[in-house]
């Protein structure tokens, strides 16, 4: 029985690049990874938003209304629903003049227990040390 820990670092804003969305959809795919693995083995994916990447976490996105696309906000909620750890860099949120009130922090409407953690970069840095592999998006 073993666990491989992946750290997904999202450093770009949404929509102009497919990277942030692919980070979230790949992370959500951890839900079915065990079909490829031996019993008891698993892979986890935790997501950290840093730099311009924190802009993915702005709430009230209306990508579905204007482009017919699932918003990054919705993908974050789906990730919370499947118990993925999400960290957002506090310093970067503040740099953009945003506060926690501006961010998607939970997915209560879907029944998710997990919440987004807004933390200092130093905590994200520590988490990166704990991961087996890092993937930068």
């Amino acid at each position: 029985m073993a666990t491989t820990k992946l750290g997904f670092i999202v450093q770009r804003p949404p929509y102009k690049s497919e990277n942030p969305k692919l980070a979230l959809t790949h992370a959500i795919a951890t839900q079915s990874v065990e079909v490829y693995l031996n019993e008891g083995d698993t892979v986890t994916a935790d997501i950290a938003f840093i730099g311009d990447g924190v802009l993915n976490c702005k709430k009230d996105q209306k990508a579905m209304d204007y482009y017919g696309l699932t918003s990054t906000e919705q993908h974050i909620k789906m990730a919370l629903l499947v118990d993925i750890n999400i960290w957002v860099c506090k310093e970067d949120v503040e740099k953009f003049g945003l506060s926690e009130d501006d961010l998607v922090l939970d997915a209560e409407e879907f029944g998710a227990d997990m919440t987004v953690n807004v933390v200092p970069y130093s905590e994200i840095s520590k988490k990166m040390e704990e991961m087996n592999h890092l993937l930068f998006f």
Partner: protein
Amino acid sequence: MGKLTIGCFASLVGSLNLDFAVKLSAAAIEKGHTVDLWVSGNGTMLSIKDQRPFKDYSHLEKPLKELMAKGLTVTACEACAEARGYNKDVTMEGFKRHSMDWYLASTFSADRVLHIGGE
């Protein structure tokens, strides 16, 4: 010898990121390592067969087939491919198609992972 899992999300033509991924795969296999190559997003363009080797565009079908013959496993994100109209009929022989969990599962047994994001 170890296992290297490479993920690449960039398109076939443009950034040369896929060229780098294929060349690095070749160098690793040459040294006796095992390589899994996963392409997702625009990277799924790599999976299309009958790439015409114009000199002005990256063309990787030939080296890719040579590497597959040497043991390279290369897999495309099925949803990303289908979204772009790259269906099974136009997929290169030997090129696998799976859901995103395949990439994650590949990292489980990998000694090293190199994730090359998209444009």
